[in-house]
Each structure stands twice: as structure tokens, then as C-alpha cells.
């Protein structure tokens, strides 16, 4: 069993973090793991790719409060708001038994107490046989502020573009692995691995049916289960499983 496996996907916008994270969640669930899918992005992404409803699986406000401590004011979780309890209570079951929890969406923002409680779940949740998979917001902000720190596997998703490689180079100090997406040739993989000195975890081919899934707003594993992209992500899920 994949005890303690904790994965975070990072990278530039549009590289395919959500599609890969969502498909990995579903694949690991089908292999018998209990999966907690964490949508940390504040614009739509993982909910669609994992096959979850858009506005559910949220933590309510008020689970954390500001208290006056010896070293000044700080956030504290309220009594009874343990990470395991919060997952049981608020992470909704979606396809293949994956449990889904989202930070929240803009506009409307995310209240500070919700953000604190969500981060608490990320840092503290742990249960035998469970896997955590987080899809972080695009770019460098969240990873640089420690939002990937809970994970043992911090994979940067890169597409063969200079911009996404440049972003990966900035993210490399806080990451552990690379996943190259939308690959059309061996040269695409080389371009990325030459520029970013991290170990290669997966190579996913460019796949028109993955793009079609994005157009439709559906989970790749549901609308294109036989596609080369989904199959490559299944292999990636297998490698992740071996790392636990």
C-alpha cells in the first residue's frame, strides 16, 4: 500500500498540472488506494479534471482563529478541528471513491481562516493507506511560500516551451521531480531535462484527446480513457505507487 505517499504538482499555467493530477488521483484510486485530492488553485482546474462538482468540497470559515500568544498574535485551529476530522467531514466523495477538497475560488476570495485551515489539513493529514495529491496554483507564488512542503514528491509539470522551462528552473529549488507533458519528440524531453536538473518522473505525449477534454470541461479519464495521454499518466501513477 502507498502509505504516506504525498504528491504535489507545480508548474507554469496551462502546462497540464490539473489534468495530470486529476488523472493520477483516479488511477491511484482504481489501484485500490484511498486518495485525497487537494485543489489548491483559486481558479478552476482540478475539480474538472478529477470529475468533481465545481462548488463543493470546501472548508467553512471559522475553523481557525487569531489568538494572543506569548510571541504575539497567531492563527490557531479551533478545538475539534483536527485534520483527519476535517477530511472526514468536508472532503466530498467523487468518482472512483476519491475524496476531494478545494481551497476555494476567486472572485469572492478565500477567507484567511479557510486558507489557514486548508494549509493545516495539507500539513497534518495522514492516515494509513491514504495518498494525498495536491494541484497547486500556477506559477511560483504558492510553492515559494511553502504550499508544496507537505509533499514528499514535488513534481514540476513542464511543457516543451521556453517559458515553462524558465518557470521550472525557478521552481527547481523547492521541487524533487519533473514530468514532461505535451511531448512530440525526444528533443522535447531533452530540451527540458538539459535545462532543469531534476529526476524525470514521467513523459506524457502530446494528445489531442487531452485537449478535447479541456474543451469539453471533462475529466480525461472519463472522456478519453484509451488515449495515449491517459495511458502515460497511468504509468506515472504506477511509478508514484512504487515510491511509497
Amino acid at each position: 500500500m502507498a502509505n504516506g505517499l504525498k504528491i504535489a504538482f507545480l508548474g507554469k499555467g496551462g502546462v497540464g498540472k490539473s489534468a495530470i493530477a486529476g488523472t493520477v488521483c483516479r488511477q491511484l484510486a482504481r489501484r485500490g488506494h484511498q486518495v485525497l485530492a487537494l485543489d489548491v488553485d483559486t481558479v478552476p482546474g482540478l475539480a474538472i479534471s478529477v470529475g468533481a462538482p465545481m462548488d463543493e468540497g470546501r472548508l467553512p470559515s471559522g475553523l481557525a482563529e487569531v489568538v494572543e500568544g506569548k510571541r504575539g498574535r497567531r492563527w490557531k485551529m479551533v478545538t475539534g478541528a483536527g485534520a483527519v476530522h476535517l477530511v472526514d467531514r468536508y472532503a466530498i466523495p467523487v468518482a472512483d471513491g476519491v475524496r476531494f477538497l478545494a481551497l476555494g475560488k476567486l472572485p469572492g476570495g478565500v477567507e484567511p481562516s479557510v486558507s489557514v485551515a486548508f494549509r493545516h489539513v495539507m500539513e497534518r493529514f495522514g492516515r494509513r493507506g491514504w495518498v494525498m495529491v495536491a494541484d497547486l496554483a500556477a506559477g511560483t507564488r504558492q510553492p515559494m511560500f511553502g504550499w508544496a512542503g507537505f509533499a514528499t514528491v514535488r513534481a514540476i509539470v513542464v511543457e516543451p516551451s521556453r517559458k515553462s522551462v524558465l518557470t521550472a528552473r525557478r521552481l527547481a529549488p523547492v521541487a524533487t521531480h519533473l514530468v514532461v507533458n505535451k511531448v512530440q519528440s525526444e528533443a522535447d524531453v531533452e530540451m527540458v531535462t538539459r535545462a532543469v536538473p531534476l529526476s524525470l518522473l514521467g513523459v506524457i505525449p502530446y494528445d489531442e484527446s487531452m485537449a478535447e477534454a479541456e474543451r469539453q470541461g471533462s475529466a480525461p479519464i472519463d472522456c478519453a480513457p484509451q488515449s495515449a495521454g491517459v495511458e502515460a499518466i497511468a504509468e506515472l501513477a504506477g511509478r508514484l505507487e512504487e515510491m511509497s
Partner: protein
Amino acid sequence: MRIAVIGKGGVGKTVVSGILARSLAREGWEVIALDCDSNPNLGISLGVGADATERLAAIRQALDAGEAEHAPTVEEMLERFGASGPDGVRLAVVTQIDTPNPG
């Protein structure tokens, strides 16, 4: 004329901004391209190249680390921390670059 380009990650904000800047410059406008992303890539789409784009971010980082003084005016900022791109477009990275935060 001041234009801001916004949208979800990966939709093409940077590409649109770069082409807008170059097109307006070719029509005779004096264009200042401001990269307001904390993960700045506009240099690539403007055509200054990946190396120069990385260098600009490094200069900005040095500025944030206090190794260089902040420029008091926009003109001075462009002079010291900006780059000249094709078609006479001038580029500056105006947002603090994200670096690993111990907190």
C-alpha cells in the same frame, strides 16, 4: 494609453501582451512593456530571448535583496533595470520575484 492583460494561467496573456507591444511600437507608439508576473516570462514573447529574460529577473531579484537601490522614477527604473527589445519596446520587471520563503 495603458493596457492590462489578465486571465487564467496558460491562456496566452504573455503572448498577446508581447505581440500588442511590438505591433503598437511598429505603428509609432513609444511602448513600455511591464512584466507584472511574479514569475516573469514576458521577455520571451517580446523577443529579447530566454537568456536576457532570465537575466532581467536576476537583476530584479538583486534589487529585492537590497543589492541594488530602488530606482526613484519610472525613467530611472527602465534605465537601470529594464532592457531594450525589438521595435524599440522597453521592458521592465516590476513585480518582486518569488523565491523560496522560509515562513
